[in-house]
């Protein structure tokens, strides 16, 4: 079968799609910023306050063992039943942040624990305060182990924001679906959007790979 490609429909709707891309980037940036804060807090609480460990493990495991799409739909469609209602964009931010926080807390925790106890003891023996030890000794070493997985989480998050289209956030995927239904040109629109995602995601993935090689800890 011969298909007649016609990319005019893509060029004439490019501004509409690019506006969706802005939302995609915004969603990624806001969720990542909040997710980093949440992940670090959770990791520190889990290390410091062992008594509420069970509650934290429950949070982390629940968000890692269930699909992100279910979490999104739950926050947007189910939570309003309890009186908490958010618009699509903030529902997506909340779901992505909670999901990301669960993964990032494990990454932070593993990074912090990986710094050997001897280093902490040495710092304390030199008369440093625990806060100084954390800031000067533990953190710089932990960061090198934390950055590579965080970079690959960023790439994953960028792609995961496409799920926000399921709750009508007007990001790139949502606009792609709307447009391909409206113009009856799914081949051109969806191909163009796939290429758009690729052009933006691929360099980020290469960068994440490069960062992971550059910061590798040799033991």
């Amino acid at each position, binding site marked *: 079968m011969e298909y007649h490609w016609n990319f005019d429909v893509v060029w004439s709707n490019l501004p509409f799609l690019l506006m969706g891309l802005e939302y995609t980037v915004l969603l990624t940036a806001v969720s990542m910023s909040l997710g980093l804060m949440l992940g670090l807090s959770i990791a520190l609480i889990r290390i410091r306050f062992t008594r509420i460990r069970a509650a934290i493990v429950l949070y982390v495991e629940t968000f890692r063992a*269930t699909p992100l799409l279910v979490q999104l739909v739950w926050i947007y469609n189910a939570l309003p039943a309890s009186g908490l209602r958010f618009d699509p964009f903030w529902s997506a931010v909340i779901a992505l942040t909670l999901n990301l926080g669960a993964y990032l807390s494990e990454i932070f925790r593993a990074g912090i624990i990986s710094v050997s106890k001897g280093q902490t003891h040495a710092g304390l023996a030199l008369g440093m305060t625990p806060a100084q030890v954390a800031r000067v000794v533990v953190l710089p070493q932990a960061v090198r182990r934390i950055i590579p997985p965080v970079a690959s989480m960023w790439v994953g998050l960028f792609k995961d924001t496409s799920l926000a289209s399921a709750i009508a956030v007007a990001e790139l*995927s949502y606009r792609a679906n709307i447009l391909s239904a409206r113009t009856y040109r799914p081949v051109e629109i969806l191909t163009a959007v796939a290429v758009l995602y*690729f052009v933006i995601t691929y360099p980020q993935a290469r960068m994440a790979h490069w960062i992971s090689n550059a910061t590798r800890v040799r033991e």
Partner: protein
Amino acid sequence: MSRGVALEMFSPLIWHQLPFLLVGFRTTLYVSGICLVLATVVGIVVALGLLSRLFVVRAIAGLYIDFFRSTPLLIQLVWVYYALPLLTGYSMTSLEAGILGLTLYEGSYLTEIFRSGIMSVATGHIDAGRALGMTSWQVFHQIVLPQAAVRMLPAFTGQALTLLKDSSILSIIAVQELLWQAESVIPITLHSMQMLTVVAILYFAVGFPVALLSNRLHARWAFDQGA
């Protein structure tokens, strides 16, 4: 959660809908199982392609993983379901499109897992096999594969969990899996909280044991390496 909602969780209406959800759950498990098998085959074939001596084969395999890993699964699924039939003239059911899309996507991740597993086998072992007069197939089959398989297992189990969770995205192209079944009944029963919570619990019931297994395998492999 307000008290009313908490009590409603036990309302009989929810339990009437449970068989409906379980039908979807069965599709989720069935699709995940099929895709895991197919994606494993794709992953092994492409991983061998990446290690091929022929540049063209390596380039094609590389393009495949770069492209599928750098675009969202959602877009791939929608493309396979809505765009591909217009190009090929062969229309697929949503289930077929879903299985094809999910297999290709997860296959690109499994390829990397298999490739690094195969690469992790020390070259000395391969040279030793060759020196003993083994054929390349014998070396691969008897020396590389058994060692690579053990090392790949933790990451493979983790990817299996990801695949199970990603299968929920098939609801977007109307595959009647767990999430789709729940969403289709919510406008009728209006019990969104109960329905979606049951959906989450069902995913968790399968996903959590797989996550535990993956963690245990990771810990055990780290221990073996340290020993």
